[in-house]
């Protein structure tokens, strides 16, 4: 292959319209002639002591520029401190040192002139492994004598927390019915269509290391890179180009990102690493892989009296940075029975290490399994008490009158009305639709006739913990996530405005929403506002884009900055017009003095500020004429109610979602098209989690699902009819966010996992089986139906 040709300047039109013909600029599109390519030698064993790593044949392979193992980095690259082990930090060396803990763990970094040379050279590494018995499930990880996944952690239980209050045992002992079941969600992964990728260059002119990465967290990545390189933060700039989807995967700092940045500095060359799909599936981050053991007590009238929960997550062989192994266990615990009144509750959450791919965030995080477990328990209780599934929810859902509600495990619910959300959903349903009868019925669905599809309806009502603030992360012991987001808004010399955000867009459409909201506060046309994000060189520090942070944290910060700047514009106009501030009148983009004789347009004012005709007095007139804003008040709690109708083929046990109806209450709706887009995309992703997506390992710890032919994500043929509505009610707007919005990024996914999961359980029940595990693959559904007699189990008294 010859050198890459220069890219044509093809950007047909502004905005996302350019994507139809390759006008996006992803990391792979930034590769220029002379960019060196990086690849990784990865572990072939799930658990082994690592002997000598001999890279001599790699280094002499054609096209290879350099190769480094952990030993070569000694003294050149500092480890990244990560949280793994009960309350402790340990040093993550980025390349395996002394041992390997999962298949795919990076062992050596190889730099060459093109991808082909690097891939061939990686095969030539001679690595001495002394294989050990891999620890691949929760039971073996916790059994005596299994050994430790990571010696440094000191235990395989690497996270442990409890929360709750009251006398749960007494409440359970006096309950009319106790549902006692264990729910599972498989190991899954986010699989953005664009794999991870990073390109770095140490700019000789500016002395700045520029790291272009497909990330959701540019500022946190900068901190990590500057930590491992021992360079001042100001000399590291992270720039986020177009990102081909994140879904949580890219809110982890990858070892590869830090290593590529190091190689750029060490070699003084522009270098790139483009992950391939095998690496992405085997060795990026997985998610979920957890069980939730619930014991839930109910009084005879169906009210919940107590919840006792134990969440156990198989977190894999490593922590993730910055969210840490606290992420999935904490998030799952926090979402249990989140929309319901719970008098007594106690939850214990554990993260257990195994020799599998490290886990991290995937859209919905713990909310998905928590929703499934919560709602399945309610269905079981309704059945045991002879109530309809609709009625048991009505009796327990929180209402506006309960607000603010101190949830014993979820924390403070500031506003919302889950009961109203349910009634609005049900009230808007077509009375002929089959699901209304199913949720109102006191009887379980009748068994289908021979050869007919098994049908099931699932109903869920849940909250999503959007945009957590610093308090949430500190309570989990996490100090690597700032928790706030920030913005600055600047008046420019031409009278237009620039907004700088701490977030990073991965296709959600931040720019359009922010531009309009900020323009409204400043009283200008949206076309006069430019939005800049994903660049630590220009934007204020903050947390980034995940957990629906944009509409809540990020936009609040931008709106606060805009309001401050708007006031300062009036002060500047007063100075220009030689009148008092309270005499200034504003009509569109023209300011006038009290008498109305003196007038100045916004554009003239900007010019006057930036090109002064004499020295100025007064801080308020100084340039840059900018104000900043900050937000750290989360979480907010949007609410969603969702119904799913599924059918299961009685011969093949293939399930299909026929219809989904949902009502979303996410505070003030800023842009309905964006809200519906997030819901639709989230729902289809959740259908994948509930029906298809499952990582599986062999007995030796090799991933069996390392291609898109084995790890199945939803395609167009998996999409059901969707009836989606959005409820925007002033009384329910968030008081924590500046606009009243609550965030909507995860609801679709969380809801679909719960609603489809519960619907599958109903379908299986009609055949005399029982389903508490997802995804509902044909094999799992067949086994569930075959386990006749399971009916009624798990309900005591």
């Amino acid at each position, binding site marked *: *292959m*010859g050198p*890459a*040709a*220069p*890219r*044509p300047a*093809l950007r*047909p039109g502004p905005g*996302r*319209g*350019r*994507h*139809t*013909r*390759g*006008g*996006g*600029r*992803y990391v*792979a*599109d930034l*590769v220029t002639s002379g960019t060196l390519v990086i690849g990784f030698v990865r572990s072939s064993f799930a658990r082994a002591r690592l002997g000598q790593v001999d890279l001599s044949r790699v280094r002499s392979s054609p096209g290879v520029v350099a190769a480094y193992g952990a030993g070569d980095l000694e003294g050149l690259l500092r480890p990244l401190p990560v949280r793994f082990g009960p309350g402790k930090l340990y040093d993550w060396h980025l390349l395996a040192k002394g041992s390997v803990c999962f298949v795919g763990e990076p062992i050596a970094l190889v730099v060459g002139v093109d*991808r*082909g040379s690097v891939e061939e050279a990686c095969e030539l590494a001679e690595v001495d492994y002394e294989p050990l018995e891999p620890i691949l499930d929760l039971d073996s990880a916790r059994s005596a004598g299994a050994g430790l996944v990571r010696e440094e952690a000191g235990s395989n239980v690497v996270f442990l927390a409890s929360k709750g209050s009251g006398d749960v045992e007494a409440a359970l002992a006096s309950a009319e019915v106790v549902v006692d079941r264990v729910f599972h969600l498989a190991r899954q992964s986010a*699989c*953005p*269509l*664009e*794999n991870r990728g990073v390109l770095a260059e140490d700019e000789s002119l500016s002395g700045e290391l520029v790291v272009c990465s497909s990330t959701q967290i540019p500022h946190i990545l900068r901190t990590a890179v500057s930590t491992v390189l021992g360079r001042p933060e100001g000399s590291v700039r992270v720039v986020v180009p*177009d*990102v*081909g*989807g994140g*879904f949580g995967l890219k809110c982890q700092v990858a070892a590869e990102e830090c290593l590529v940045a190091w190689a750029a500095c060490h070699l003084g060359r522009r270098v790139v690493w*483009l992950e*391939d*799909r095998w690496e992405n599936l085997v060795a990026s981050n997985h998610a979920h892989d957890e069980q939730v053991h619930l014991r839930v007590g109910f009084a005879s009238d169906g009210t919940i009296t107590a919840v006792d929960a134990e969440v156990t997550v198989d977190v894999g062989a490593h922590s993730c940075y910055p969210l840490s192994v606290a992420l999935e266990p904490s998030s799952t615990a926090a979402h249990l029975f989140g929309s319901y009144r719970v008098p007594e509750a106690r939850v214990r959450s554990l993260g257990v290490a195994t020799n599998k791919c490290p886990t991290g965030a995937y859209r919905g995080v713990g909310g998905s399994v928590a929703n499934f477990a919560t709602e399945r328990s309610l269905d079981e209780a309704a059945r045991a008490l002879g109530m309809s599934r609709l009625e048991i929810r009505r009796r327990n859902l929180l209402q506006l009158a309960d607000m603010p509600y101190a949830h014993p495990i979820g924390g403070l619910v500031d506003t919302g009305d889950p009961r109203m959300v349910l009634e609005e959903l049900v009230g808007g349903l077509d009375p002929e639709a089959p699901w209304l009868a199913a949720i109102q019925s006191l009887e379980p669905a009748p068994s289908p006739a021979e050869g007919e599809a098994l049908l099931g309806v699932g109903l869920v009502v849940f909250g999503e913990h959007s945009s957590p603030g610093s308090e949430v992360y500190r309570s989990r012991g996490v100090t690597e996530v700032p928790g706030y987001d920030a913005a600055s808004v600047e008046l420019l010399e031409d009278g237009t405005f620039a907004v700088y955000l701490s977030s990073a867009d*991965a*296709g*959600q*459409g931040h720019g359009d929403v922010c531009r309009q909201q900020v323009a409204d506060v400043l009283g200008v046309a949206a076309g006069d506002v430019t939005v800049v994000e994903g660049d630590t060189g220009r934007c204020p520090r903050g947390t980034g884009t995940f957990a629906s942070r944009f509409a809540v944290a990020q936009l609040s910060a931008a709106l606060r900055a805009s309001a401050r700047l708007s006031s300062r514009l009036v002060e500047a106009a007063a100075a220009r017009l030689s009148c008092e501030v309270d005499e200034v009148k504003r009509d569109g983009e023209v300011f006038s003095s009290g008498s109305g004789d003196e007038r100045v347009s916004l554009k003239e004012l900007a010019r006057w500020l930036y090109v002064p005709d004499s020295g100025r007095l007064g801080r308020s007139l100084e340039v840059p004429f900018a104000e900043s804003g900050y937000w750290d008040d989360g979480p907010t709690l949007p609410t969603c109610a969702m119904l799913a109708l599924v059918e299961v083929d009685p011969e093949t046990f293939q399930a299909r979602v026929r219809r989904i109806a949902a009502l979303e209450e996410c505070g003030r709706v800023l842009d309905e*098209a964006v809200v519906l*887009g997030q819901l*639709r*995309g*989230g*729902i*289809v*992703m959740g259908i994948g989690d509930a029906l298809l997506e499952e990582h599986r390992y062999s007995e030796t710890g090799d991933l069996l699902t390392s*291609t*898109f*032919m084995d790890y199945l*994500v939803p*395609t*167009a*043929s998996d*999409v059901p009819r*969707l009836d989606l509505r959005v409820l925007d009610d002033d009384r329910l707007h968030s008081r924590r966010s500046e606009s009243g919005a609550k965030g909507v990024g995860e609801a*679709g996914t969380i809801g679909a996992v719960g609603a489809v999961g519960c619907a599958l359980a109903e379908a299986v029940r009609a055949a005399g089986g029982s389903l508490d595990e997802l995804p509902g693959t044909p094999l799992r559904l067949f086994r569930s139906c075959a386990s006749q007699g399971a009916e009624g189990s798990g309900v005591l008294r």
Partner: protein
Amino acid sequence: MQVGFELNGEHLDLDVEASVSLADLLHSRLAAASVHLGCEQGVCGACAVLVDEEAVRSCLMLAVQADGRRVTTAEGVARRRGGRWSEVEAALVGKGAFQCGFCTSGVVVALEELLAGDEPLTREDVVEQLSGQICRCTGYVPILDAFVSLLASTGRMREEGGR
């Protein structure tokens, strides 16, 4: 190996290693930024291009196999029809049928193949064609709606089961 083919209307003669995939050639050497590598396992469809009239996964085809063929990437779809924007592009933009954009150019190519025929199509036909393209963002609905509207406006839509 020598290979000669037409790319978006221009004839090219190149010397290419036999092992290079068409996707790699197009993206890395010929600056066809629309050819995205999503899986290189022949599943996701992000690297779809038209070879003559057929949408193919360029990651599964060797560059040398393009010899003597006419290759059209998403960059060239509009030009192929002599317009500034193709109807498919306009339909997708009109419905806002993308978020991150990584799958979009492959979707344009796959739908262009379907549009190029003249037989009436059902929504099911569109679903089937689109099921070869993975999109993780949109839930497919706006893409389907956009293309179905386009077909309806040109009288190409047919009710299910009326074949």
